[in-house]
Protein backbone atom coordinates (compact mmCIF):
# COMPACT_ATOMS: atom_id res chain seq x y z
CA UNK A 1 0.00 0.00 0.00
CA UNK A 2 2.90 2.31 0.81
CA UNK A 3 4.37 1.74 -2.65
CA UNK A 4 1.01 2.32 -4.33
CA UNK A 5 0.36 5.42 -2.22
CA UNK A 6 3.82 6.81 -2.83
CA UNK A 7 3.47 6.36 -6.56
CA UNK A 8 -0.01 7.77 -7.08
CA UNK A 9 -1.10 9.99 -4.19
CA UNK A 10 0.04 13.32 -5.66
CA UNK A 11 -1.81 12.85 -8.94
CA UNK A 12 -4.89 11.55 -7.14
CA UNK A 13 -4.76 14.61 -4.85
CA UNK A 14 -4.43 17.03 -7.76
CA UNK A 15 -7.26 15.42 -9.71
CA UNK A 16 -9.48 15.54 -6.62
CA UNK A 17 -8.48 19.10 -5.81
CA UNK A 18 -9.39 20.29 -9.32
CA UNK A 19 -12.82 18.75 -8.85
CA UNK A 20 -13.63 19.81 -5.28
CA UNK A 21 -11.50 23.01 -5.13
CA UNK A 22 -10.80 22.61 -1.43
CA UNK A 23 -7.47 21.30 -0.15
CA UNK A 24 -8.91 19.93 3.07
CA UNK A 25 -11.58 17.99 1.24
CA UNK A 26 -9.07 16.83 -1.38
CA UNK A 27 -6.79 15.48 1.36
CA UNK A 28 -9.71 13.66 2.96
CA UNK A 29 -10.55 12.30 -0.47
CA UNK A 30 -7.20 10.64 -1.01
CA UNK A 31 -7.43 8.87 2.34
CA UNK A 32 -10.88 7.60 1.37
CA UNK A 33 -9.73 6.56 -2.10
CA UNK A 34 -6.74 4.53 -0.90
CA UNK A 35 -8.77 3.03 1.95
CA UNK A 36 -11.29 1.84 -0.64
CA UNK A 37 -8.43 0.41 -2.66
CA UNK A 38 -7.19 -1.42 0.45
CA UNK A 39 -10.65 -2.85 1.04
CA UNK A 40 -11.43 -3.71 -2.57
CA UNK A 41 -8.02 -4.78 -3.87
CA UNK A 42 -9.51 -8.17 -4.75
CA UNK A 43 -12.04 -6.53 -7.07
CA UNK A 44 -9.40 -4.92 -9.27
CA UNK A 45 -9.62 -6.88 -12.50
CA UNK A 46 -6.38 -5.68 -14.02
CA UNK A 47 -8.06 -4.82 -17.31
CA UNK A 48 -7.06 -1.18 -16.95
CA UNK A 49 -4.08 0.65 -15.49
CA UNK A 50 -4.07 1.09 -11.70
CA UNK A 51 -4.00 4.87 -12.19
CA UNK A 52 -7.20 4.68 -14.27
CA UNK A 53 -8.89 2.69 -11.50
CA UNK A 54 -7.69 5.18 -8.87
CA UNK A 55 -8.89 8.20 -10.87
CA UNK A 56 -12.30 6.61 -11.39
CA UNK A 57 -12.67 6.06 -7.63
CA UNK A 58 -11.42 9.61 -6.96
CA UNK A 59 -13.95 11.05 -9.35
CA UNK A 60 -16.78 9.13 -7.72
CA UNK A 61 -15.69 10.23 -4.25
CA UNK A 62 -15.22 13.85 -5.35
CA UNK A 63 -18.70 14.03 -6.85
CA UNK A 64 -20.15 12.53 -3.67
CA UNK A 65 -18.25 15.10 -1.59
CA UNK A 66 -19.56 17.89 -3.80
CA UNK A 67 -23.10 16.63 -3.41
CA UNK A 68 -22.65 16.69 0.36
CA UNK A 69 -21.59 20.33 0.24
CA UNK A 70 -24.74 22.37 0.02
CA UNK A 71 -22.92 25.53 -0.98
CA UNK A 72 -21.50 24.00 -4.15
CA UNK A 73 -23.69 23.32 -7.13
CA UNK A 74 -22.69 20.88 -9.83
CA UNK A 75 -24.22 22.69 -12.78
CA UNK A 76 -22.03 24.65 -15.13
CA UNK A 77 -23.63 28.02 -14.54
CA UNK A 78 -23.03 27.94 -10.81
CA UNK A 79 -19.46 26.77 -11.24
CA UNK A 80 -18.78 29.54 -13.71
CA UNK A 81 -20.45 32.10 -11.47
CA UNK A 82 -18.11 31.15 -8.62
CA UNK A 83 -15.14 31.56 -10.90
CA UNK A 84 -16.42 34.83 -12.32
CA UNK A 85 -16.43 36.31 -8.86
CA UNK A 86 -12.85 35.39 -8.08
CA UNK A 87 -11.08 35.13 -11.41
CA UNK A 88 -10.02 38.06 -13.45
CA UNK A 89 -8.49 36.99 -16.77
CA UNK A 90 -8.37 40.62 -17.94
CA UNK A 91 -5.78 41.40 -15.30
CA UNK A 92 -3.60 38.66 -16.65
CA UNK A 93 -3.96 40.00 -20.17
CA UNK A 94 -3.04 43.47 -19.00
CA UNK A 95 0.19 41.92 -17.83
CA UNK A 96 0.56 40.57 -21.35
CA UNK A 97 0.82 37.09 -19.95
CA UNK A 98 -1.20 34.84 -22.23
CA UNK A 99 -0.21 31.67 -20.44
CA UNK A 100 -1.40 33.07 -17.13
CA UNK A 101 -4.72 34.02 -18.74
CA UNK A 102 -4.91 30.52 -20.17
CA UNK A 103 -4.41 29.03 -16.72
CA UNK A 104 -7.08 31.32 -15.26
CA UNK A 105 -9.52 30.35 -17.97
CA UNK A 106 -8.74 26.65 -17.44
CA UNK A 107 -9.91 27.03 -13.85
CA UNK A 108 -13.05 28.81 -15.06
CA UNK A 109 -14.24 25.82 -17.12
CA UNK A 110 -17.23 23.82 -15.90
CA UNK A 111 -16.48 20.70 -13.77
CA UNK A 112 -17.25 18.39 -16.72
CA UNK A 113 -14.92 20.30 -18.99
CA UNK A 114 -12.21 20.69 -16.33
CA UNK A 115 -12.04 16.99 -15.60
CA UNK A 116 -11.80 15.95 -19.23
CA UNK A 117 -9.07 18.50 -19.99
CA UNK A 118 -7.09 17.33 -16.94
CA UNK A 119 -7.53 13.65 -17.71
CA UNK A 120 -6.28 14.02 -21.29
CA UNK A 121 -3.55 16.62 -20.91
CA UNK A 122 -2.22 16.11 -17.38
CA UNK A 123 -3.07 12.51 -16.54
CA UNK A 124 -2.33 11.45 -20.16
CA UNK A 125 -5.32 9.15 -20.41
CA UNK A 126 -6.35 7.66 -23.74
CA UNK A 127 -9.86 8.03 -25.20
CA UNK A 128 -10.76 4.56 -23.88
CA UNK A 129 -9.42 5.27 -20.39
CA UNK A 130 -11.27 8.60 -20.10
CA UNK A 131 -14.46 6.84 -21.21
CA UNK A 132 -13.92 4.28 -18.43
CA UNK A 133 -13.19 6.89 -15.75
CA UNK A 134 -16.03 9.27 -16.62
CA UNK A 135 -18.48 6.55 -17.66
CA UNK A 136 -19.40 7.93 -21.07
CA UNK A 137 -19.02 6.58 -24.65
CA UNK A 138 -15.70 7.14 -26.43
CA UNK A 139 -17.25 9.41 -29.07
CA UNK A 140 -18.73 11.57 -26.32
CA UNK A 141 -15.27 11.81 -24.76
CA UNK A 142 -13.88 13.20 -28.03
CA UNK A 143 -16.68 15.70 -28.61
CA UNK A 144 -16.77 16.78 -24.96
CA UNK A 145 -13.10 17.69 -25.07
CA UNK A 146 -13.64 19.51 -28.35
CA UNK A 147 -16.40 21.63 -26.78
CA UNK A 148 -14.34 22.15 -23.63
CA UNK A 149 -11.63 23.60 -25.86
CA UNK A 150 -14.17 25.79 -27.65
CA UNK A 151 -15.42 27.08 -24.30
CA UNK A 152 -11.83 27.79 -23.29
CA UNK A 153 -11.32 29.77 -26.51
CA UNK A 154 -14.51 31.75 -25.78
CA UNK A 155 -13.33 32.59 -22.26
CA UNK A 156 -9.98 33.71 -23.61
CA UNK A 157 -11.63 35.76 -26.32
CA UNK A 158 -13.82 37.45 -23.71
CA UNK A 159 -10.63 38.26 -21.85
CA UNK A 160 -9.15 39.78 -25.00
CA UNK A 161 -6.87 36.89 -25.99
CA UNK A 162 -7.11 35.81 -29.64
CA UNK A 163 -5.23 32.65 -30.55
CA UNK A 164 -6.39 32.11 -34.11
CA UNK A 165 -8.79 29.29 -33.24
CA UNK A 166 -11.70 28.71 -33.68
Amino acid at each position, binding site marked *: *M*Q*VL*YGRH*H*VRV*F*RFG*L*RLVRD*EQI*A*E*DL*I*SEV*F*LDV*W*RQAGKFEGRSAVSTWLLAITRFKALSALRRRKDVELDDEAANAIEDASDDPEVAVQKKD*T*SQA*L*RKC*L*TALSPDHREI*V*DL*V*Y*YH*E*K*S*VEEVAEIVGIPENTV*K*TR*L*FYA*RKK*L*AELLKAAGVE*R*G*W*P
Partner: protein
Amino acid sequence: MMAMRKTMLEQEPSEMETLLPWHAAGTLNARDARRVEEALARDPELARQYAVIREEYAATIDLNESLGAPSSRAMQKLFAAIDAEPARQPPSSLSLSGRIANFFAGLSPRALAWTASAGALALLLQAGLIGALLVKTQPAPFQTASLSTDEPTTRALGPQAPPRALVRFAPDARVADITALLDSYQASIVDTRGGLFRLQFGNKAMPKDEIAGLMSRLQGEKIVSLAVAAP
Protein backbone atom coordinates in the same frame (compact mmCIF):
# COMPACT_ATOMS: atom_id res chain seq x y z
CA MET B 1 -33.05 25.30 -43.21
CA MET B 2 -29.94 25.29 -45.38
CA ALA B 3 -28.37 27.96 -43.21
CA MET B 4 -29.16 26.04 -40.05
CA ARG B 5 -27.67 22.82 -41.48
CA LYS B 6 -24.58 24.75 -42.53
CA THR B 7 -24.18 26.13 -39.00
CA MET B 8 -24.58 22.67 -37.51
CA LEU B 9 -22.01 21.25 -39.90
CA GLU B 10 -19.62 24.05 -39.07
CA GLN B 11 -19.95 23.25 -35.37
CA GLU B 12 -19.48 19.52 -35.80
CA PRO B 13 -15.79 18.73 -35.34
CA SER B 14 -14.01 16.49 -37.82
CA GLU B 15 -12.54 13.23 -36.53
CA MET B 16 -9.01 14.56 -36.96
CA GLU B 17 -9.83 17.67 -34.93
CA THR B 18 -11.14 15.55 -32.06
CA LEU B 19 -7.98 13.44 -32.02
CA LEU B 20 -5.52 16.37 -31.86
CA PRO B 21 -5.44 16.67 -28.03
CA TRP B 22 -4.47 13.00 -27.66
CA HIS B 23 -1.82 13.47 -30.34
CA ALA B 24 -0.37 16.37 -28.31
CA ALA B 25 -0.36 14.19 -25.18
CA GLY B 26 1.21 11.28 -27.08
CA THR B 27 -1.54 8.83 -26.14
CA LEU B 28 -2.84 7.89 -29.60
CA ASN B 29 -2.20 4.44 -30.98
CA ALA B 30 0.34 4.19 -33.80
CA ARG B 31 -2.29 4.04 -36.54
CA ASP B 32 -4.21 7.13 -35.40
CA ALA B 33 -0.99 9.02 -34.69
CA ARG B 34 0.13 8.41 -38.29
CA ARG B 35 -3.26 9.52 -39.64
CA VAL B 36 -3.10 12.74 -37.60
CA GLU B 37 0.50 13.40 -38.72
CA GLU B 38 -0.56 13.06 -42.36
CA ALA B 39 -3.58 15.34 -41.86
CA LEU B 40 -1.41 17.96 -40.12
CA ALA B 41 1.05 17.90 -43.01
CA ARG B 42 -1.60 18.64 -45.62
CA ASP B 43 -3.97 20.95 -43.67
CA PRO B 44 -2.53 24.28 -42.42
CA GLU B 45 -5.78 25.11 -40.59
CA LEU B 46 -5.50 21.88 -38.61
CA ALA B 47 -1.82 22.61 -37.93
CA ARG B 48 -2.77 26.04 -36.54
CA GLN B 49 -5.34 24.42 -34.26
CA TYR B 50 -2.70 21.92 -33.16
CA ALA B 51 -0.36 24.76 -32.14
CA VAL B 52 -3.17 26.17 -29.97
CA ILE B 53 -3.68 22.73 -28.42
CA ARG B 54 0.03 22.49 -27.57
CA GLU B 55 -0.34 25.74 -25.59
CA GLU B 56 -3.39 24.38 -23.76
CA TYR B 57 -1.51 21.16 -23.04
CA ALA B 58 1.46 23.03 -21.52
CA ALA B 59 -0.81 25.37 -19.52
CA THR B 60 -2.81 22.44 -18.10
CA ILE B 61 0.37 20.71 -16.94
CA ASP B 62 1.66 23.97 -15.40
CA LEU B 63 -1.63 24.52 -13.63
CA ASN B 64 -1.77 21.00 -12.18
CA GLU B 65 1.89 21.01 -11.15
CA SER B 66 1.29 24.29 -9.29
CA LEU B 67 -1.30 22.57 -7.07
CA GLY B 68 1.40 21.08 -4.86
CA ALA B 69 1.10 17.86 -2.89
CA PRO B 70 -1.01 16.74 0.04
CA SER B 71 0.32 17.08 3.58
CA SER B 72 1.46 14.08 5.59
CA ARG B 73 -1.87 14.31 7.45
CA ALA B 74 -3.56 12.48 4.58
CA MET B 75 -1.12 9.56 4.79
CA GLN B 76 -1.34 9.38 8.59
CA LYS B 77 -5.12 9.38 8.36
CA LEU B 78 -5.07 6.61 5.77
CA PHE B 79 -2.72 4.29 7.63
CA ALA B 80 -4.50 4.91 10.92
CA ALA B 81 -7.74 3.93 9.18
CA ILE B 82 -6.12 0.81 7.73
CA ASP B 83 -4.79 -0.17 11.15
CA ALA B 84 -8.25 0.35 12.60
CA GLU B 85 -9.93 -1.75 9.90
CA PRO B 86 -10.22 -5.10 11.72
CA ALA B 87 -11.48 -3.35 14.86
CA ARG B 88 -14.03 -1.25 13.01
CA GLN B 89 -15.46 -4.07 10.98
CA PRO B 90 -17.64 -6.51 12.88
CA PRO B 91 -16.37 -10.06 12.67
CA SER B 92 -17.53 -11.66 9.50
CA SER B 93 -20.12 -14.39 9.82
CA LEU B 94 -17.82 -16.59 7.77
CA SER B 95 -14.55 -18.00 9.05
CA LEU B 96 -11.45 -17.92 6.88
CA SER B 97 -12.04 -21.50 5.80
CA GLY B 98 -15.64 -20.60 4.97
CA ARG B 99 -14.50 -17.71 2.79
CA ILE B 100 -11.99 -19.91 0.99
CA ALA B 101 -14.68 -22.54 0.42
CA ASN B 102 -17.03 -19.87 -0.95
CA PHE B 103 -14.32 -18.52 -3.22
CA PHE B 104 -13.69 -21.92 -4.79
CA ALA B 105 -17.42 -22.64 -4.98
CA GLY B 106 -17.83 -19.48 -7.04
CA LEU B 107 -15.32 -20.56 -9.66
CA SER B 108 -16.36 -22.29 -12.84
CA PRO B 109 -14.95 -25.81 -13.39
CA ARG B 110 -12.55 -24.42 -16.01
CA ALA B 111 -11.37 -21.62 -13.70
CA LEU B 112 -11.03 -24.13 -10.89
CA ALA B 113 -8.85 -26.34 -13.07
CA TRP B 114 -6.63 -23.41 -14.01
CA THR B 115 -6.38 -22.32 -10.39
CA ALA B 116 -5.39 -25.82 -9.33
CA SER B 117 -2.73 -25.94 -12.07
CA ALA B 118 -1.38 -22.55 -11.01
CA GLY B 119 -1.30 -23.71 -7.39
CA ALA B 120 0.58 -26.87 -8.32
CA LEU B 121 3.09 -24.85 -10.32
CA ALA B 122 3.58 -22.45 -7.40
CA LEU B 123 4.21 -25.42 -5.07
CA LEU B 124 6.77 -26.85 -7.51
CA LEU B 125 8.55 -23.51 -7.75
CA GLN B 126 8.58 -23.10 -3.99
CA ALA B 127 9.93 -26.64 -3.53
CA GLY B 128 12.64 -25.93 -6.09
CA LEU B 129 13.57 -22.70 -4.35
CA ILE B 130 13.79 -24.32 -0.91
CA GLY B 131 15.71 -27.28 -2.37
CA ALA B 132 18.20 -24.94 -4.02
CA LEU B 133 18.66 -23.11 -0.73
CA LEU B 134 19.31 -26.32 1.18
CA VAL B 135 21.85 -27.49 -1.40
CA LYS B 136 23.65 -24.14 -1.22
CA THR B 137 23.80 -23.95 2.56
CA GLN B 138 24.80 -27.60 3.35
CA PRO B 139 28.45 -28.62 2.98
CA ALA B 140 29.08 -31.20 0.30
CA PRO B 141 29.52 -34.74 1.77
CA PHE B 142 32.36 -35.54 -0.61
CA GLN B 143 34.61 -33.68 -3.00
CA THR B 144 35.95 -34.75 -6.39
CA ALA B 145 39.52 -34.07 -7.33
CA SER B 146 38.56 -31.96 -10.31
CA LEU B 147 35.88 -29.73 -8.75
CA SER B 148 36.29 -27.31 -5.92
CA THR B 149 32.99 -26.14 -4.45
CA ASP B 150 34.69 -23.18 -2.79
CA GLU B 151 35.22 -21.39 -6.03
CA PRO B 152 32.45 -20.12 -8.23
CA THR B 153 32.18 -21.85 -11.59
CA THR B 154 30.82 -18.70 -13.21
CA ARG B 155 31.84 -15.13 -12.87
CA ALA B 156 29.33 -12.33 -12.35
CA LEU B 157 29.16 -9.99 -15.33
CA GLY B 158 28.14 -6.95 -13.33
CA PRO B 159 28.27 -5.70 -9.73
CA GLN B 160 26.65 -8.02 -7.16
CA ALA B 161 23.06 -7.08 -6.34
CA PRO B 162 21.82 -6.41 -2.80
CA PRO B 163 20.06 -9.39 -1.20
CA ARG B 164 16.36 -9.95 -1.77
CA ALA B 165 13.79 -12.18 -0.16
CA LEU B 166 10.26 -13.36 -0.69
CA VAL B 167 8.33 -12.66 2.48
CA ARG B 168 4.81 -13.48 3.56
CA PHE B 169 3.56 -11.56 6.58
CA ALA B 170 1.32 -13.06 9.24
CA PRO B 171 -2.39 -12.39 8.57
CA ASP B 172 -2.68 -10.34 11.77
CA ALA B 173 0.40 -8.17 11.02
CA ARG B 174 -0.39 -4.48 11.34
CA VAL B 175 0.79 -1.90 8.83
CA ALA B 176 2.71 -0.09 11.58
CA ASP B 177 4.52 -3.34 12.49
CA ILE B 178 5.42 -4.04 8.87
CA THR B 179 6.71 -0.48 8.46
CA ALA B 180 8.82 -0.84 11.63
CA LEU B 181 10.22 -4.15 10.40
CA LEU B 182 11.13 -2.65 7.02
CA ASP B 183 12.90 0.21 8.80
CA SER B 184 14.83 -2.03 11.19
CA TYR B 185 16.08 -4.21 8.29
CA GLN B 186 16.64 -1.22 5.98
CA ALA B 187 14.38 -3.04 3.55
CA SER B 188 12.15 -1.81 0.79
CA ILE B 189 9.30 -3.52 -1.03
CA VAL B 190 10.34 -4.21 -4.63
CA ASP B 191 7.08 -5.80 -5.70
CA THR B 192 4.18 -7.81 -4.37
CA ARG B 193 2.09 -10.62 -5.79
CA GLY B 194 -0.53 -12.84 -4.25
CA GLY B 195 0.30 -11.92 -0.67
CA LEU B 196 4.06 -12.44 -1.16
CA PHE B 197 6.33 -9.41 -0.90
CA ARG B 198 9.73 -9.23 -2.58
CA LEU B 199 11.96 -7.21 -0.24
CA GLN B 200 15.38 -5.75 -0.94
CA PHE B 201 17.81 -5.26 1.96
CA GLY B 202 20.06 -2.22 1.85
CA ASN B 203 21.91 -1.37 -1.34
CA LYS B 204 25.03 -3.50 -1.08
CA ALA B 205 25.73 -7.12 -1.84
CA MET B 206 26.14 -9.54 1.10
CA PRO B 207 28.11 -12.77 1.51
CA LYS B 208 26.05 -15.98 1.48
CA ASP B 209 26.46 -16.67 5.19
CA GLU B 210 25.21 -13.19 6.09
CA ILE B 211 22.21 -13.66 3.81
CA ALA B 212 21.45 -16.98 5.52
CA GLY B 213 21.69 -15.26 8.93
CA LEU B 214 19.44 -12.48 7.70
CA MET B 215 16.84 -14.97 6.47
CA SER B 216 16.89 -16.86 9.73
CA ARG B 217 16.49 -13.63 11.74
CA LEU B 218 13.66 -12.58 9.46
CA GLN B 219 11.97 -15.97 9.75
CA GLY B 220 12.15 -15.58 13.53
CA GLU B 221 10.12 -12.35 13.45
CA LYS B 222 6.64 -12.69 14.94
CA ILE B 223 4.89 -11.02 12.02
CA VAL B 224 6.74 -13.03 9.33
CA SER B 225 5.26 -16.38 8.36
CA LEU B 226 7.64 -17.12 5.46
CA ALA B 227 10.99 -15.69 4.41
CA VAL B 228 13.19 -17.17 1.70
CA ALA B 229 16.10 -15.65 -0.18
CA ALA B 230 15.17 -14.77 -3.74
CA PRO B 231 16.89 -13.38 -6.82
